[in-house]
């Protein structure tokens, strides 16, 4: 956008002033967000959803040993970090920042928005915001982040469930093998015995199998 020559703008000075005022407002409205995330794919997805909320500038930081220094450098209004990231404790140190150029940062816990904080925590994202940021400005950002993190959580849970099921299957197979060998019975009978024992004891089959495998390793 070029600068309007003064002579031509003479008739509409108020418009020009309005434009400047608008530009200024746009600039102060730009929210700077730092996302602490080591996984590039996750970071890209977060950036995408945050950009969709409008006037934001997103920086991605990895949780290195110098996280505090990097955050000071990009001087964000909001820091978003996975709630389980051990480097969160480094961010807590920023809440004590008292230098003249340092802006106090607090974990977003606002009485008026406790439900918002709770939703975020359950989704697994925590937000640190500079002092004085209006909750209504944070809401769309946090909403977008929460949606994204909920998706990550679902993926993680599914992955864990699959992994555990696989491991349990392996233990049950080993236990079954032990029973077959010790009693000289068929696979189906060994499985039935394992299941019956679990039911009688009110335990999960995987737990009974694990106990058997552990005991066998102690005795062999």
């Amino acid at each position, binding site marked *: 956008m070029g600068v309007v020559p003064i002579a031509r703008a003479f008739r509409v000075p108020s418009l020009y002033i309005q434009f400047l005022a608008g530009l200024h407002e746009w600039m102060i409205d730009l929210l700077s967000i730092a996302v602490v995330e080591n996984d590039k794919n996750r970071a890209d997805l977060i950036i995408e959803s945050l950009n969709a909320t409008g006037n934001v500038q997103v920086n991605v930081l990895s949780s290195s*040993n110098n996280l505090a220094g990097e955050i000071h450098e990009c001087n964000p209004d909001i820091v978003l970090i996975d709630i389980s990231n051990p480097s969160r404790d480094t961010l807590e140190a920023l809440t004590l920042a008292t230098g003249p150029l340092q802006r106090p940062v607090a*974990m977003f*816990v606002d009485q008026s928005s406790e439900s918002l904080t709770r939703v975020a*925590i359950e989704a697994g994202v925590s937000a640190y915001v500079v002092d004085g940021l209006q909750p209504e400005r944070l809401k769309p950002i946090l909403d977008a982040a929460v949606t994204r993190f909920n998706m990550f959580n679902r993926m993680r849970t599914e992955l864990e469930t699959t992994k555990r099921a696989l491991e349990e299957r392996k233990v049950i197979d080993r236990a079954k093998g032990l029973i077959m060998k010790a009693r000289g019975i068929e696979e189906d009978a060994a499985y039935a015995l394992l299941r019956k024992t679990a039911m009688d004891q009110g335990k999960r089959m995987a737990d009974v199998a694990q106990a058997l495998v552990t005991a066998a390793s102690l005795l062999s």
Partner: protein
Amino acid sequence: MKGAVLSIGFIPLVDAAPLIVAQEMGFAAQEGLALNLVRAPSWSRLRDMLVFGQVDAAHMLSPVPVASALGLGGAGTTLSAISVLSVNGTAIGVNAALAERMHAAGHGFGFDDARVAGNALIAAARGPLRIGVPFPFSMHAELLYYWLSALGLPAPQGIDIRTVPPPLMAEALKAGDIDAFCVGEPWGSIAVEQGAGTLLLPGKAIWAFAPEKVLAVRDQWAEAEPELSARLIRALWQAGRWLADPASRVLTAELLARPEYLDLAPEIIDRSLSGAFTISPLGVQRRVDGFVNFHDGAANFPWRSQAQWIAWQLAARTGLDRAEALAKAAHVYRADIYRAAMADQGADLPGASSKIEGSIESNTPVASDLGRLFLDRDVFFDRRIFDPDAAIPEN
């Protein structure tokens, strides 16, 4: 007694032992409790889990409930410490360059004298000392500020305390992001194992009886569940007494080493329990008696004066009104709840709930319910004392 399940958050550290032992050795079951122990990835996460009710109680750094009462470190909800889980148990270490300069200047790494070690450290420093601690509100940070400023290093100009998660401490030391650290075991020993650091001092050389971890609960929970909190306090006291028996040591290290707890080698865990430390990558050995204390000298009693000492230090550093801070901290460590839980349990309780911190030179008998209580040595290395009732703010 009705069975109840309590969710309790912990950080994988040696001093989470009372919680793990209470569950694994049946002390919780004796009180009709089952503890669902939830491992947390960071102190801030654990504090939030507690504040937002995802756990009923938590293994917590002793200054965190005090800081929250002073409005520092935004938690929103006030927390109470209903029992002290452990006393002492941290270690200070330095990077290879500092260790070398200190050696060259004739420091013997005796691992016992805070004044000698501190002066050697200050003399070897080039520029402000960058020291890693696990959390801004921690006994680690308080001990470092107290120690180095008492030796004339101006704080905060001469000391740059940085927060580094304990598992990253050795890495930060190697990368040159910090010069030194103060951390709970086994992370100091792990830095030695990885060839990154040399241990300089146990925390107890600075303050002989520093409350390290507390059992923290939400205020409202303590008020609403007096019966459950009493049972929990008693189970943890039993666990602490069991831990104090030297015969329990090997089993303790094995229990803590399990994948669901610390998931580390039992040999590393045993160093802090036995007090037999390897302090340098070259294998130099040092002994520390009572490196971490779970029971002796009424270790679990939550003294009002301990909370007030912490509040005094925090207020002085952050510019809060010190008299006000003392008043706010007076109700954070709940001696009243602890007393009610431990009455008629065979544990001797002190007559008073506040003491002059730093005034006990050697184990001393004190006025108590049963007349058999000894308090352990609690001196500061510079022999200053802290009397909360006489601590008038200087101007």
